[in-house]
């Protein structure tokens, strides 16, 4: 059984400079309470791994605006002009990774693979500096795993042992990121007693979750 943690307490446990996987797609299915708590704590120098940086004032965009981020590993920053401006000004380092490669690299980090071979990115800038491996006459890029010190996960419902359910397009990177960090912090819209989420509906087993944010005050 998990102890319910306040978002401010959770944010205190995260040091400046940490590598943080953050769920969500344009703010949908993002851990908004944890993001707000990190902004409030004034955290600095983060490496963020996330699909995108949302928009200014939304989700991960708040961390960008707050100056909390030193580096982003992401697939898309097109809807956040502030990320682009800070990148061009040299304030944020941005590593652009194809979305499918990004999620597979995080999964590889989570399930103990040393790397994966993919055709995505061949013949593009993504190929630069990477090892190319030929198998039966076809070329593939060797892409390496990504892991975080922390993963911040947003779920639809959690139960007391930390089992998580997601809904609709709010799944996105969350179930994969929950596999790939030393410390996994989940926030859910509702926390229900054990047994309310049936075994077949659990998408992230509670054994993966280290901390659960308590009911929003």
């Amino acid at each position, binding site marked *: 059984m998990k102890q319910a943690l306040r978002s401010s307490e959770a944010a205190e446990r995260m040091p400046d400079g940490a590598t943080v996987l953050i769920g969500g797609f344009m703010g949908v299915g993002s851990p908004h309470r944890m993001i707000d708590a990190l902004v409030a704590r004034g955290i600095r120098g983060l490496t963020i791994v996330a699909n995108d940086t949302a928009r200014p004032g939304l989700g991960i965009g708040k961390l960008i605006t707050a100056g909390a981020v030193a580096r982003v590993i992401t697939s898309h920053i097109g809807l956040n002009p502030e990320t682009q401006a800070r990148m061009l000004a040299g304030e944020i380092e941005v590593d652009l990774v194809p979305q499918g490669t990004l999620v597979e690299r995080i999964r590889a980090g989570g399930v103990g693979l040393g790397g994966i071979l993919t055709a995505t990115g061949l013949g593009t800038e993504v190929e630069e500096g990477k090892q190319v491996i030929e198998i039966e006459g076809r070329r593939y890029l060797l892409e390496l795993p990504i892991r975080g010190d922390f993963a911040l996960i947003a779920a639809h419902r959690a139960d007391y042992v930390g089992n998580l359910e997601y809904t609709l397009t709010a799944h996105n990177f969350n*179930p994969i990121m929950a596999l790939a960090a030393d410390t996994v912090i989940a926030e859910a819209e509702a926390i229900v007693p054990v047994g309310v989420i049936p075994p077949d509906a659990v998408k992230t087993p509670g054994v993966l979750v280290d901390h659960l944010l308590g009911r929003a005050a």
Partner: protein
Amino acid sequence: MNIEMEKIGMDPKERIARRVAQEIVPGTLVNLGVGLPSMVANYVPAERGVFFQAENGVIGLGARPPEGMEDKDLTDAGGGFVTAVPGAASIDSAMSFGLIRGGHLDMTVLGGLEVDENGHLANWKVPGKMVPGMGGAMDLVAGARRVVVAMQHSARGASKIVPVCTLPLTAARRVDLIVTDLAVIRPGEDGLTLVERAPGVSVDAIVEATTAHLNVPDNVPEMRLD
């Protein structure tokens, strides 16, 4: 070209979307990019039994929800509210891109900045100017069974169909079809072939508006726009 568009009483984007919709095979899985490509769904009748995928996590993407019934957890890849059709499935990003990269996606429709005589697409970066990132575009072009580029023929007076892409490529793969407001063009081993022209647009006008070399057959029929 805008004058001609107005003549036939149809917005150029609508023309493109209607023409692309004809490419969609009944009972298949199709991904539509953000922006213009997403308009294609409006012209695909429900009876065709097509499932649209939004790469952010739903198979069976539906139209806009009724006012006031939007669900914050159901959006398309552009972040706009959508619905889910009966028989829809929620999927995470690993499954979503597993479908795209594993050859399960029958077709993708993407916007473009440039397409060249090799059929190469560039659509994710303008160095030093605009760097939105590739999002899912590189996966889609590398993985989808069929790639259709839907875009305006020109931007600010300059042809987007060029001899060789000057912008960074999205993939080494040759796309399968280009649909613009002026023409339908098929890339192949022997370069780009003009296969259809927009209603009221002459072959000469298309060739003039295109910096890439176009193979022009004797007969170039007009697009059917039903």
